[in-house]
């Protein structure tokens, strides 16, 4: 029984980590006012790039770097389309999803079923020996630790630094920020691209740590779950952490249920995270809740200094 508890919780963190990265990145982008629905596409390309570089060079960190950069590259495409050309952000984001699925499927065909170097667990001395908590939290791979650290860093950045304040102002009231001399366009570019970095990292985690191999479409809708998580988290990194691990937990619950022989068909259990997503969206998509909890007011609205309504 102890084993099951530990494996469920550690599974939750493993499955939650890619969600966490993607959610944190999207929080930054959305806080600047840019909605990027292309997480799924950026994650897939991150996963593919990470895996192929690891396969070719054997260098894990080079693989992660390449995945991060490819995410940023795709996000910069979205930034150009939605910020400079002011194309509808939903359409542009969806385009990224198809682009990611297409490219990774095309290039990835050659890698199907292959294996590459992957991240191994790194037990932290002392902390890793604490019963229960140790194996769940402190006996993980490096990327998980990066996830832990990202949360307080981003929180501190958003709420305590000047740059974070500027970022929030750009997403809340771009005209006010502009009138105070903050470069709205540049700010949005920067955080959209940083959001892409995080999505690339999330993808790399999936193909280099979570299931270290290449499978077509291996992100399996996690990008969409992350989009929902941003809303669930009401754009807050700390709630994002809770949400990501909770969703991770739901998605590994099926394994524990199978071991415990809970009489629910596997196919139904596979649906849990997605059903949960639908419920989160149902709850959170009402305008009233968004207004109460403070969605960035200018989210999804392109900014132009001379064109005001």
């Amino acid at each position, binding site marked *: 029984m102890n084993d099951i508890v530990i494996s469920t919780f550690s599974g939750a963190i493993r499955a939650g980590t890619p969600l966490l990265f993607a959610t944190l990145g999207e929080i930054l982008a959305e806080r600047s006012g840019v909605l990027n629905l292309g997480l799924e596409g950026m994650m897939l390309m991150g996963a593919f790039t990470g895996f192929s570089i690891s396969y070719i060079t054997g260098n894990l960190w080079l693989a992660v770097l390449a995945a991060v950069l490819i995410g940023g590259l795709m996000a910069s495409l979205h930034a150009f389309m939605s910020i400079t050309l002011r194309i509808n952000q939903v359409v542009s984001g969806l385009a990224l999803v198809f682009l990611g699925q297409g490219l990774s499927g095309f290039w990835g065909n050659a890698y199907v079923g292959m294996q590459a170097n992957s991240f191994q667990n790194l037990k932290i001395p002392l902390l890793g020996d604490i019963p229960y908590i140790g194996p769940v939290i402190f006996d993980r791979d490096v990327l998980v630790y990066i996830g832990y650290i990202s949360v307080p860093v981003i929180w501190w950045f958003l709420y305590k630094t000047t740059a974070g304040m500027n970022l*929030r*102002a750009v997403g*809340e009231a771009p005209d*006010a920020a502009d*009138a*105070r*001399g903050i470069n709205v366009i540049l700010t949005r570019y920067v955080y959209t691209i940083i959001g892409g970095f995080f999505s690339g990292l999330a993808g790399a985690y999936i193909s280099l740590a979570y299931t270290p191999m290449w499978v077509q479409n291996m992100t399996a809708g996690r990008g969409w779950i992350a989009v929902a998580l941003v809303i669930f988290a009401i754009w807050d990194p700390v709630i994002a952490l809770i949400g990501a691990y909770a969703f991770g937990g739901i998605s590994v619950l099926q394994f524990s249920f199978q071991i415990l022989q809970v009489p629910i068909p596997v196919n139904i259990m596979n649906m849990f995270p997605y059903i949960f997503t639908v419920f989160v969206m149902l709850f959170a998509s009402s305008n*009233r809740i968004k207004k109460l909890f403070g969605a960035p007011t200018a989210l999804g609205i392109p900014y132009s200094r*001379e064109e005001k309504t």
Partner: protein
Amino acid sequence: MSEKILELKNISKSFSNLIANDSVDFDLKKGEIHALLGENGAGKTTLMNILYGIYKPDAGEIFLDGKKIVISSPRDAIENGIGMIQQHFSLVPSFSVVQNVALGLKEMGIIPDLSKIRKKIIELSDRYKISVEPDAKIWQLSAGEQQRVEIIKLLYVKSKIMILDEPTAILTPQEAKGLFETIKEMTANEASVIFISHKLKEVLEISDRVTVLRHGRVIGTVETKETNENDLARMMVGRDVVLKTDKKPSHPSKPILEIENIHVMGDKGIEAVRGVSLEVRGGEILGIAGVEGNGQRELGEAIYGLRNYTGNIFINGSKVRPGNVLERIKNHVAYIPQDRKADALCGGLPVYKNLFMKAFSSPIFSFNPYFFYPEKLKEPSEKVVKEFSIATSSVDQEVKFLSGGNMQKVVLAREIKSHPKLIIAVHPTRGLDVGAEEFVYNVLLAQKEKGTAILLIAGDLYEIFNLSDRVGVLYEGQIIGYSEPDESHIEEIGLMMAGVKK
């Protein structure tokens, strides 16, 4: 007099086919209050947005202290000591006052020292007697309080040139007085102020000099001491203006609109109208005054059935259901919304279709029970266009190409032609020039003569004085009291607008 600190030379700016500024010259002396006067659309705000770096001029030069400068963004303007309070405030609603003042300051470094900024805000508010609550969030503040935050922002960065765009539009008369004192205090401390307005009285009261703009051109610059209301009005409009309307005493008949204790939700999920009861009789105009954002829009929309409500509304004695516009149309209710482009017209449709939009379901225009022949509307439309002297190339012209005044005439024509028993008019002259304003006034007064009941919701007190027979004041979603629509009651109305009960 003292030296010029700012000069604008030959500034021109056009938006697609509209010329907003045409070779405008403007200068500002140290320590003076220079009013920029003109009708809506005369190009005042455009000119100042150029000075503040929001718009790029097509031509022209800017000189500061005799040196030519280029301002290509608000940052440049701020660095040159120019500050602007725009009509729509540049504040982040979810931020506190301190954070808003801190936003964009150069001195902040990586981690802002908000406590230092807070201290300085308190100092400034003591020195200039501007009361602000540093830790309050902007969305919790009234429009007047938000404006004080904007003033603090300008004082904080020691702006030498302060541009105020229609600052009194959202204030009660008493708050406006307080603002004027602050402005005088600021100029006493070496700042120069550009005061944008279309209201003659306040320009005469506050300014040292006045520059009048009309259709994007400078008509002239005069010393305030050497001018008067009539001269300025003539410069502004280009002809003599009848400032008083011919309001005849009313002979109210039976009640047409009766409202019993309605509550209406606003967009933010907060109750915007909180228990309003009122009655408008045939042949009278009831004016509803109040500072904007006190439930005016929601009240108008609820009465016309565009917004849900609880409580009862009776039109012509019969109860109407919430959210049912068709029922209102059948009961001959006309509606002139505050945002005509969004709520009253369909910009991409020609004039003639807009004119008959409300009548599509009526039997007069159903020439055939199954099909609809819009072509047959053209002839009657031409008559209406003539009757209301709507300036349009033809009835096929798309409405979005008309000027604001002509758009409003299309709305009026359609609503009046539906033979209304009740007219709900919300800010009916907003953004119109004086000519169009007069037209609207005359149409409404003529309707009143005919026995129509009119509910006039307006922000401009003079509009209410000119038209209405009674005036109620809306404050935080409630009618706080009634008064006489007369200038001698302005003090009392102003107090009620600020929430002080009689």
